């Protein structure tokens, strides 16, 4: 049975070293929607991204995650990627000795194999590389180097979006892709994301700053605090957070928590 949701997260709890980091998180994303997740440092945003992409740093202890109705949590990281999940890493990894070209060629062809397609021809692959490089205004020389090796912070982030452009995911998770970017780079990255998106591509943008959301306009803004989504509203919430900071969210959440625990007593 096909779900109307692309991604459905229910009561998700996860621990790192026996410490609960995600404490019952709910989120539903329909095809084509853009969701922003904001929230103070340490509230579990990257942990959520890790759990969704199958990185084994965190252990899921409760709840479910489905992607197009399929149980996501039983899939390996590579299966999730082939199903169409893409993470733009908060901290992209340097891989000396593995060339960008070989990396992308392998990734694309593994994903094509999964969809029953022939490997891309060398010329078609190069054409796509060229086209997508222009899209994110990435320096041509970078793709002749090893993956992220010696890239500046901004180049690494652009490289994430370049990979996203090559792989054309159904759901893109952008984990603080805007952090550390100057305004020009930010515009390039945001425009890149917009150009890559098809109408049914969904995006979850994890960010601290309203400014990215001027370019990638979200349908929903969620605030995450202490392992949960504590507030959901439209784009105006991001503006409010920009003005007022997170303290009021914290207070509100802590009050709710108290009431909740008192009620239970």
């Amino acid at each position, binding site marked *: 049975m096909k779900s109307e949701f692309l991604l459905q997260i229910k009561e998700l709890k996860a621990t790192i070293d026996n410490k609960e980091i995600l404490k019952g998180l709910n989120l539903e994303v329909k095809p084509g929607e853009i969701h922003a997740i904001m929230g103070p440092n340490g509230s579990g945003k990257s942990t959520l991204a890790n759990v969704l*992409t*199958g*990185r*084994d740093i965190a252990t899921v202890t409760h709840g479910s995650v489905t992607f197009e109705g399929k149980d996501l949590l039983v899939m*390996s*990281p*590579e299966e*999730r*990627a*082939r199903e169409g999940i*893409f*993470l733009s*890493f908060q901290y*992209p*990894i*340097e*891989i*000396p*000795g*593995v060339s960008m070209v*070989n*990396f992308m060629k*392998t*990734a694309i062809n*593994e*994903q094509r194999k*999964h969809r029953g397609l022939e490997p891309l021809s060398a010329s078609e692959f190069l054409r796509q590389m060229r086209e997508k490089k222009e899209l994110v205004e990435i320096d041509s020389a970078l793709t002749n180097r*090893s*993956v992220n090796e010696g890239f500046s912070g901004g180049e690494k982030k652009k490289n994430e979006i370049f*990979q996203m452009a090559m*792989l054309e995911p159904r759901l893109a998770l952008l984990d603080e892709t805007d952090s550390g970017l100057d305004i020009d780079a930010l515009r390039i990255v945001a425009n890149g994301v917009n150009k890559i998106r098809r109408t049914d591509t969904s995006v979850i943008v994890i960010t601290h700053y309203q400014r990215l959301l001027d370019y990638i306009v979200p349908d929903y803004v969620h605030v995450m605090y202490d392992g949960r989504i504590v507030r959901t509203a439209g784009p105006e919430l991001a503006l409010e957070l920009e003005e007022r900071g997170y303290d009021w969210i914290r207070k509100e959440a802590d009050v709710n928590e108290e009431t909740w625990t008192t009620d239970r007593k």
Partner: protein
Amino acid sequence: MDYRPEVINKLSEIYSGSHGTFLKNSPEIFNRHRETAYKEFLRLGIPDRKNEAYKYTNLEKSFGYPYQVYYSPVPQDFREAEKFHCEVEDLDVWNMVLLNGFFPRGEEGLVMLPGGIWVGSMKAAAKQFPGLVEKHYNKYVQGENDGLVPLNTAMASDGLFLYAPKNTAYTKPIQIVNLLHSDQDIFAQDRNLVVVEDRAQLSLLVCDHAISPQHFLTNTVTEVYVGQNSRFEIIRVQNQHNNSGKITHTFIHQERDSYASSNNITLHGGLVRNATWHMLNGENSETHSYGLYLADKQQHIANFVKVDHAAPNCNSTQLFKGVLDENSSGAFNGRIMVHKIAQGTNAYQSNNNILLSDAARMDTKPQLEIYADDVKCSHGATVGQLDNNALFYLRSRGIDAREAKLMLMFGFAHDVIKNIPIEALRERIDNLVQKRLRGELSRCASCAIQCN
């Protein structure tokens, strides 16, 4: 029980018993050094683990084996060797195949290549260039207390001679394929000399293959003289089987403003030990020692490197990397000695290893002795697993775990391979290493037996 006295006895018997044959079949210059070397060997014996340079390498597996042939000056049957085709076919090199250390019949003489470079047997060289051979033979060997070097001097009867006279250069690399093929178990020793005179250039590719499943042990000594303003490169590709032992001692002696590099690529071999000695004897010189070793099963691969900075303002690098699987083991012993006069020295050393199994083992040991004060010296060693973060990064793009691991291992190895100075060869080695890591490498390309 110590296996060595019996082996030494046997070698002594052969030495004394075959003395006449030795003398008759060898260049006179070889004979002149034999007796002293033989005594030195008896004094030092076969190195055991009490010898610092062999601390992690047990030679018993190779030296304790009862070989049928220890010394065979008779011409070899070259029919098998003629069938051999190097896997690196598209490589543009000048090529010669040696069988069990012997030259093909009719090619014992010296050949002059375009550009004025001489190649051939030591025997022929001793006749044609007696003064030159005398000047360099047995002059650059060191080995401190390693008995295997004098053992070679005492018992080797021939080997390769390469000579680039002043101002000569040959555009192609010279490829020597050392084949081992026999219906008997053989212990062979070859003795090689390379002379690159002032302002000359030479690039040597040595491929070691065993193409029949017998037990083989080779103890090779190669002396290299690199004159002023000259350039020398040596690349060894070792692809032997689990029953073979390969011991090499390479002594590279450099004069001022010279450049040398050594690349040891060990893809297979039961027991392999490469000792590479770099003597920077003239100022403003540069020397590089690279090594890549891939081991599995019960294999043991050791690299010993010593760089002597005996002159001011020289640069040296040592970069060795290994991937060890199953029950294999490896050893790296890298030494840097900076003499008192060697001001302005730049010396770099690095050894990185990936262990793929819990049983695999690697011992790595830097040794630095620095007697000058204006010296930049750095060294580092790692033994570990594949980087989990990198692995996840690749998988998160849809690359399956096995392929991602291979890509990482291959990237790790490429760091050494990229230093191979010949492009076509670099690509081929990349290819061979990929195949080897995938478990697809035909271990003995032209052999029907497919042992192991």
